[in-house]
Every structure is written in structure tokens, then in C-alpha cells.
């Protein structure tokens, strides 16, 4: 696991709502698996105080770079957004457990920034020659990203937007239901990442016999499993760390 500076090689506003940062982090690129994340901080020390977790959105092992995609939502992402190429961030990672990489067909379903880890997963799926379908949703067309990469990697890519500005008028959950409804079992393994209500609906397909893996988000402090701050409840009644047992869980093992 790497802890130290990572130089910003590129930093762009990919869409009006989504930023992409390319970081020089060869140790992370080598070790990373889809679904894992990195924990970033600037040199701002106290404001914000804690690191911020971001999914590995793309990894170039050859170049030793990783890409993170993020939306500006609060203080931390605002300060990240102000950094320029040549500056460094402090990086801890790769962290957590990623997606299983099973045999058979994969169905990648992501909403909003939940698209980010699926990009890495799609590229891995292509390397492994898995039949891939991607279902991608966002609030508006301007928030959809990575489409060409998905198109290259996947047999089919469907999109939806809340405002109908791109793809189907609706959510990625609607796409998922439409895609799976009436299909014969065993169907594909579903990899879902996005807002909680969507994950809940995706998880519902477990009861229909599909393997569904969800990628969760929780407020984090250490990112290492030490503080027990980032837990999700489990059906058994206890709690699991999202940072070390997840962020990706089989949908049956967590109570979202």
C-alpha cells in the first residue's frame, strides 16, 4: 500500500459536472483492482481535516498513472478542483476490496459518479474477454462521462438521464429493470454503483437469483479499518467496514 505524494499530471473539467484528475502513482497503478479506491488529501491540513475517498476510475499500469473522476460537492472537492497539474496530492491506497471478476456475462450499472469505478471494471472485463453490457445514468447528459471507453469495451451501452437530455428519460435503475425483466436465469453478474436508492433496487435482483455486487459509500476517517467509522449494517445484525470489507459487497451481505 502506498502512502505519499502523487503528482497531478492532468486535471480537466471533463463535463460541466465531472472533473478528471490523472495522478502519477506507479505503485498504486500496479497494485490496483477495479472497485478499489484511493484516499486523497491536499496540503491544506485542517480545512478540510480528513482525507477524501475516490474510486479508481482508470488505471494505466504501463504509464504508472491512475485517474479519478469527481464532482465538486463540498469543501474537500472544491479544494481538489483548484489544484493544477504539477502540484501534488497526498495519496493513500489502493484501499478496500474491489469487484469479483467472475466468469460469464457482466452487467455494469452505474449512476452519477458511480460510473467511475465501472470504467476501470469495463477495461478489466475487456482484457478478460467477458461479454459486457453497460447501463449508465446521470441527472443530465452533461454528467455522463466515459461513454467512448464503455463503447469500446462493451457489447452494448445504454444511457438514461433524469431530464431526458441524453438516452432514455429515467434512471439507471429503470435501465436495469428493463434490461433484466423477463430474462432467463442464470443471467449476468450485476455490478452496481451509484446512489443508495438505485443500489437498493439493484440489490432486489439478488432475490431473483442473480449475483449482484454493490459498491457503497460511507463517511470515512482512516480508510484502513482502524476507526470503525465507515460501517454498513449486515443482515446478521452486526456491522462491516466499508473501507476494508468493501466498498464492494455482494448485495446479500449488506443491509443498504
Amino acid at each position, binding site marked *: 500500500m502506498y502512502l505519499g505524494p502523487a503528482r497531478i499530471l492532468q486535471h480537466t473539467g471533463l463535463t460541466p459536472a465531472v472533473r478528471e484528475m490523472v495522478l502519477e502513482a506507479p505503485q498504486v497503478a500496479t497494485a490496483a483492482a477495479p472497485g478499489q479506491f484511493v484516499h486523497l488529501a491536499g496540503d491544506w491540513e485542517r480545512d478540510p*481535516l480528513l482525507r477524501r475517498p475516490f474510486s479508481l476510475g482508470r488505471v494505466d499500469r504501463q504509464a504508472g498513472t491512475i485517474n479519478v473522476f469527481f464532482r465538486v460537492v463540498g469543501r474537500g472537492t472544491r479544494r481538489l478542483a483548484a489544484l493544477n497539474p504539477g502540484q501534488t496530492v497526498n495519496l493513500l491506497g489502493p484501499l478496500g476490496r474491489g469487484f469479483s471478476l467472475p466468469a460469464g456475462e457482466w452487467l455494469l450499472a452505474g449512476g452519477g459518479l458511480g460510473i467511475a469505478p465501472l470504467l476501470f471494471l469495463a477495461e478489466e472485463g475487456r482484457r478478460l474477454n467477458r461479454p459486457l453490457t453497460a447501463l449508465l445514468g446521470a441527472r443530465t447528459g452533461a454528467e455522463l462521462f466515459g461513454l467512448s471507453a464503455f463503447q469500446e469495451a462493451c457489447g452494448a451501452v445504454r444511457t438514461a438521464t433524469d431530464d431526458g437530455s441524453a438516452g432514455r428519460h429515467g434512471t439507471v435503475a429503470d435501465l436495469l429493470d428493463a434490461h433484466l425483466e423477463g430474462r432467463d436465469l442464470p443471467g449476468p453478474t450485476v455490478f452496481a454503483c451509484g446512489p443508495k436508492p438505485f443500489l437498493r433496487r439493484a440489490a432486489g435482483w439478488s432475490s431473483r437469483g442473480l449475483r449482484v455486487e454493490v459498491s457503497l459509500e460511507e*463517511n*470515512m476517517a482512516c480508510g484502513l479499518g482502524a*476507526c*470503525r467509522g465507515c460501517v*454498513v449494517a449486515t443482515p446478521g445484525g452486526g456491522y462491516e467496514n466499508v473501507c476494508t470489507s468493501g466498498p464492494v459487497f455482494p448485495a446479500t451481505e449488506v443491509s443498504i
Partner: protein
Amino acid sequence: MTNPVRNSVTAPVTMPDLSVQLGSLSLKNPVMPASGTFGFGEEYGPFVPLASLGAVVTKAVTLEPTPGNPPPRLAETPAGLLNAIGLQNPGLEVFLREKLPWLRDQGATVIINLAGGTAEEFARLVEALDGQPGVAALELNVSCPNVHRGGLAFGTDPKVLSRLVGFLRPRTDLPLIVKLSPNVSDVALVARAAAHAGADILSLINTLPGMAIDVARRRPVLGNVSGGLSGPAVKPVALLQVWKVAGAVDVPLIGMGGIGNAADAIEFLLAGAGAVAVGTATFVNPRVCLEIREGIARYLSDNGFSRVSEIVGLARRGY
């Protein structure tokens, strides 16, 4: 002693002695992680040789496995962190079987933080740990704001605390550290009660009770409604409590609350703490304890001191 420059010139340039003695507890250096922020050490092993720390202070251990509070358990606040973990831990048995042996193997000086809902629970914990090889001291967590039974009340009432410490004292030869609650009008009163009842060392502060509200959802952010505030925000409060307790009792103190760098740690030493613990800052920089250790060494030699004890309480002269 007041002219830092003259001292650094006249003193021999030797590496200062960082070891500290807190009563019968010997530490290699005065910097340790704070309970609950370092797990049982395993998670930070990749970053820090545990034997290089003043001590490793474990997450609270309870008699039975404790599931903890419903999420969200964390909320960042200005220069602070609210947590409502609820003492999640696997319980005494698993601790003894799986955690303690590993810690012992690291060569770490191990301080075990204990939490009980009743005096009897505390007693069973203390007795179970007494005589375990590789345990350097026990820290009684009588001040956690995040559990609904007992815990906090022990820490805020001097009489109740005194009775608890007196009840536990004869049950072990290990040094007993009592972690005081900051949530009192007069911390000196509570400190005196703990010291007179037999506490060997006092540690402070635990987190301050606090909360945050999500204005969009119009609900408390934390699943537990309230949590404990830690981090730089609480440092001034922590430092004053250490200052007051140092003036009220003769037992050694472990100071904590918002320490993020060597200067912060030195403030606590100057206020009268014999050692310091670092909590929230570890989350951002897993190596922060080592960096603080180096910073203290540099401060000592830059200012012509040869050991940590020379600066403990030094800001108190004249008060």
C-alpha cells in the same frame, strides 16, 4: 532556561533522551496513538513499526463483543471530527486470543483501553488482563460519550469515579490509567478523586459531546444523533484541562485532544503532561506519531534540553 538560543549554544549537541517514566510505566518516548484511533495496531503496522511508538493504546475492549452504533458514525466539522462508533469491538475473548498475541509479537508497549457498563464488568476485564504477558498498563475508559449505559456517568461524578477506581485498584498490579471525562465543570475535582482512589496515571481528554444536523434532510447527521468531537478544534479545551489537572494532582498525565504536530504535542508537555496521545491526526497521516517524536527531539536539542522531563510543566512556572 528562558533564552532558547543561548541554551542551544552552550549545551552539548547530543541526541536528547526521549524516554519517559510515568510512575511505574516506562515508555521509549512520549508519543502514542489515542485509543480508538489505532484499532488494535494491525492496520497501522504497514506504516509504523509499533515498537517505535511510546506505546500502542488499543481500541476499547469490552467484556462481550459490542456491535456499535448504527451508521453514519462520522461527521467532519470545522477542524474537528464527530464520531459515534459506540465502542465496536470483538470483546475480551477474541481480543485475548487474536489481538493481544499479535501486538505482543511486535515488541510494542501495550496499553489496553477498557470499557465497562458497570463496576463488575470493569472488574472482570481488569482481572482477565492482570498477569497477561505483554500488557504494560490498563486505561479505564470512564468517559466515552457514545454509549448509553453507565460509561459517561462514571467519569462525571467524583464520588462514583472514586468508588470505581478504589474497587478496581486491588485487582491488578498493572499501572491503572484513568481516562477522565472532559464534560465536567471542574475537571480538577474529578482528577483528584481518581488520583486519591489509586489511579497511577490520568489521561485526558476524551471527546467532547457534540452533534451536526443535515439541513437538506433536516435530520441529525449521525445515526446516534450525538457523537464525540475530536481533532484540532478541541485542542484549546484539552490543553486547559491538562493545565488544570497538572496543578491539582501529583500523578503523571497523558495529554491528548487535537494534537496534529510536534508544536501541539509540546504545548501539552509544557502544560504538564508527561506524555501525549494522538488520535484524529493519525487518520490523515498514519505516520504522524513518528513525525511528532522527531519534532520533539528537535525542539529539545534546539533549545538545549537533554530529556523530555525537563520541559514537562515548564510553562507553569510562576502560576
